[in-house]
């Protein structure tokens, strides 16, 4: 059945895991699938909702507004005029992190039907939520930037930091997803641990208040890898509020470690997950 396409692939399977080289080649070969799946994931999420993609923006904006009202009017923490922007940036970053992690933890298990008979690197399933949620994040960041003057925050060149901020955030959550999604296949209680962690995690991260607010728990916030990218969001919009270099270093190192561990786990167990699904 020669139809002028690339030569037929040869599948060689032995008990040993695929080599890094092969694994990487397969990953690249399936990049198109990743993009299509991510797009479909995004579309199907909002397609059947009447307001559509607007929800992707409305949720963090609304959340930011609520938090801002609570903290400026009720708690009266007095963090200044840029506080609304501060909260909205933190909430946008955190909701991306939470929704991606919440989905990716079960991505391999949920994707069982999709990969039961046709093989493609399962990593793709894990990366899909990171990509599809990125649209919502970018849109809410754009809205946030547009709202800045209204809350008395001037634009500055620091806004460029939003790019590495988003990059680091996505890298962190994806790397973490690689690890937890593999664990979830073997231990079905991992997703509940993740859910519980996501509830607490927000308060140990300077999402709605600066690190200083945590007093003695500061050290936890600094060791928290999520503090790095979230602080970058704040840096980019309202300027520095407390420590950010140390958290950034922590975040970069944790991401790198998780990425290496996660990729290794995924490579090694890729064609074995199916046995447990």
């Amino acid at each position: 059945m020669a139809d002028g396409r690339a030569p037929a692939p040869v599948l060689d399977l032995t008990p040993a895991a695929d080599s890094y080289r092969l694994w990487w080649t397969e990953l690249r070969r399936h990049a198109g699938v990743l993009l299509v799946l991510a797009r479909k994931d995004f579309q199907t999420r909002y397609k059947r909702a009447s307001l559509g993609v607007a929800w992707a923006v409305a949720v963090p904006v609304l959340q930011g507004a609520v938090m801002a009202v609570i903290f400026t009017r009720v708690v009266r923490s007095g963090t200044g005029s840029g506080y609304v922007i501060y909260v909205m940036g933190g909430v946008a970053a955190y909701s991306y992190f939470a929704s991606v992690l919440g989905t990716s933890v079960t991505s391999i298990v949920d994707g069982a039907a999709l990969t039961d008979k046709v093989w493609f690197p399962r990593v793709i399933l894990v990366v899909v939520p990171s990509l599809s949620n990125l649209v919502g994040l970018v849109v809410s960041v754009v809205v946030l930037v547009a709202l800045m003057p209204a809350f008395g925050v001037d634009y500055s060149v620091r806004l460029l930091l939003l790019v590495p901020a988003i990059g680091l955030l996505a890298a962190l959550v994806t790397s973490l997803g690689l690890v937890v999604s593999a664990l979830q296949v073997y231990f079905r209680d991992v997703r509940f641990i993740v859910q519980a962690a996501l509830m607490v995690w927000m308060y140990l991260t300077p999402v709605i208040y600066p690190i200083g607010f945590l007093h003695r728990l500061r050290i936890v916030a600094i060791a928290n890898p999520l503090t790095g990218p979230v602080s970058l969001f704040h840096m980019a919009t309202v300027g520095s509020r407390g420590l950010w270099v140390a958290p950034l270093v922590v975040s970069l190192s944790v991401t790198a470690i998780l990425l290496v561990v996660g990729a290794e786990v995924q490579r090694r167990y890729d064609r074995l997950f199916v046995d447990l699904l």
Partner: protein
Amino acid sequence: MSPAIEMEGVGKKYWHLTEQAMLLKSILPGAAPKKEERWALRDVDLVVDTGETVGVIGHNGAGKTTLLRMLAGVSRPSEGHIRVRGRVAPLISVGVGFHQEMTGRENVLVNGMLLGLTRREVASRFDEIVAFSELEEFIDTPVKFYSSGMYMRLGFSVAVHTSPEILLVDEVLAVGDGSFQLKCFDRMRSMQADGTTVLLVSHSIHAIRLLCSRAVLVHHGRIDFDGTAELAISRHHELMSTPVGGGSVDGSGPLAGSAQEPWISVTSRSLAGETGPTHHLQPGERATYSVRLRFNERVDHPRFVFGVTSEDGTACYVMQTRVGLEWRSFAAADELEVDVDLSTTLGGGTYRFTLTATDRFGRQTYLHDVGGLVVYVTPRLGSAGIADLDAHIKASGDDLTAHEPLLIEGKASSPGRLGDAG
């Protein structure tokens, strides 16, 4: 040309956990969940040449699906080596590989890409795919609203349009209406003719017989037989009719002693064809099915019912003795031989011959020999189906009746007369 599929000493081991692993338990020392290993497949050597069609048969849980999974690259063998050359399209049972929330159209794109097409290739074949599936009206409906038949039609359609070099088929023809099944058969045959390698896993002996010249019998995780489809099917039935743990050689139901029949027990079953005792009948052959019975209690005026069921449980034939006649009574320990003379008008396949005894009103069942005797009927060359009508096709006076197996030209090796397999 190198073979499309090579398997060398392949085995697949599963850890059978007595309970789902729990994070806490596996971390705590000494509390690791109990697990035992199970080999789903062991020592499998299989070579399938390019362009060949091979059937895979075996009872449920024999390891057929595990085999296909490994060939599709989804699962890794625990030992041995597998090499598959060529683009593989797995044709899968209901609804696998589809995203519930996405429409038929979107699923065609994703599925096509997963099967190795580029986005553009899918787009150019899209109309063809939809036309083949006959789902034009529903193509923009999310597939979660599809019936299982629609699901299968779309899945089959995408897979065959990706022009795969190797087609792995798993029970796919079990769903869908008759006309679509025929369409699938036709399509698979034309792909065979085009040189596509096909591995067909099926419980449908008819499908195996129609499409495969060679078949592999998987039994308890090992390849028990590899040869012509007819011999493999015959061997399969032999294994199915042998009770687990050996014992009865001539039938599948329990004989006297192995089960307590309250009123009547079967002491032996046998079948005699025109050439003597046998389990294989030729179409048109006269035969006698004999069942020896022993009465355990007094039974008055029994009525006998002879039945034939096909492998899928269809009642092919039921016939009873005269009603209302107060024939005779039997005392405990009496013996009786019941002979059923018959003419083999069954199509090729496996059947069970059963005998039931009731009181003359049919209210009380004295004997229900469900297992009965497994009988294999060799198909008439050029025909398939449950009945043998001994048809002859004539056109302008010429008898065009086929005298070769109902298989694709050039790929069929004549199964010949059926000998004893294994």
